[in-house]
């Protein structure tokens, strides 16, 4: 049951997360193709959870492919987020905002 739980939880969490991100693209320049690829990966991960109840080894291979699909979005997004946090820190510390109290 461990693989089922792990794949299912990971698939649900990433799926909901990506779904919400895609919902927010109304406020962004454009939807990212990688988000759709990763969302497909989340669905594959859920499928792997189901397969794991019958063929655990085959499910692991499906899950691995699914995870790689999901990482195509999460890996660059994580790097970009870290870069943005560094940039934002610079903004807060180095810039004087007009009218600041």
């Amino acid at each position, binding site marked *: *049951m*461990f*693989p*089922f*739980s*792990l*794949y*299912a*939880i*990971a*698939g*649900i*969490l*990433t*799926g*909901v*997360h990506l*779904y*919400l991100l895609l*919902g927010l693209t*109304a*406020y*962004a*320049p*454009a939807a990212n193709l990688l988000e759709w690829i990763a969302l497909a990966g989340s669905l594959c*991960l*859920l499928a*792997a*959870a*189901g397969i*794991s*109840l*019958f*063929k*655990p*080894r085959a499910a*692991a*291979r499906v*899950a*691995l492919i699914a*995870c*790689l699909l*999901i*990482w195509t979005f*999460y890996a660059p997004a*994580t790097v970009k987020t870290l870069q943005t946090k560094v*940039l*934002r820190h*610079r*903004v*807060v510390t*180095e*810039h004087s*905002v*007009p*009218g*600041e*109290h």
Partner: protein
Amino acid sequence: MHVAPETIYSVLTYLSLLFLVLATAYAALVSFSSRPDGETASWTFPGPGKGSLRKAVGVAGIALAVGLASWIAFALRGSSRPASRFLIPEGYIGWVKVEFGVSGAPPLPVEGGKCVVRFSPSGFLKTSTPEQSMGGRDSYYYYSDSGTHALADRTSGAASLIWGQFHSQDFGSSGKHTYEQFFVGTEQQFKEQVNPTNQAEGNAARGGAVNK
């Protein structure tokens, strides 16, 4: 108990990454490892589950998945704020900032379902309206005596005149202060503001001072 949408979203992001790492590691371990001869089922090489158990776990898992997804989506969507209409003095280039929840300051007027945030010539505004982040498609305008005209926002990509929008807060002697701020100007001007190296390079390229 009210949980801020940002908190839910942050927790969701970190949990997603955590479980993605775990699932990747586990799937890779099982996929690339060979099962030792004679070894019984273990957590790394599990056998197929029992029939009744498989059905029970499958049904419970699907119900849990649907319930969790619905709850999170409902929680985040239900708490979105109305969109804002930001009015910026004509020709203003630089950072603008609005401070929320200031007692004694006027509330933000609502026109056509949008909060109207009208900045003073200094680019600053105080309002008693509490901050409501997440959601809503904001719009940005320059205003002058002759009227208003729309500014290109993030939907315009590199042509946008709105950059670096973020929320912040600090805790002073007078309590908690929450802000929303963003930069009005071209991408190049924004980069010059946040990176002094770029600013120096930009000045050198133009052979003059920063155009503000």
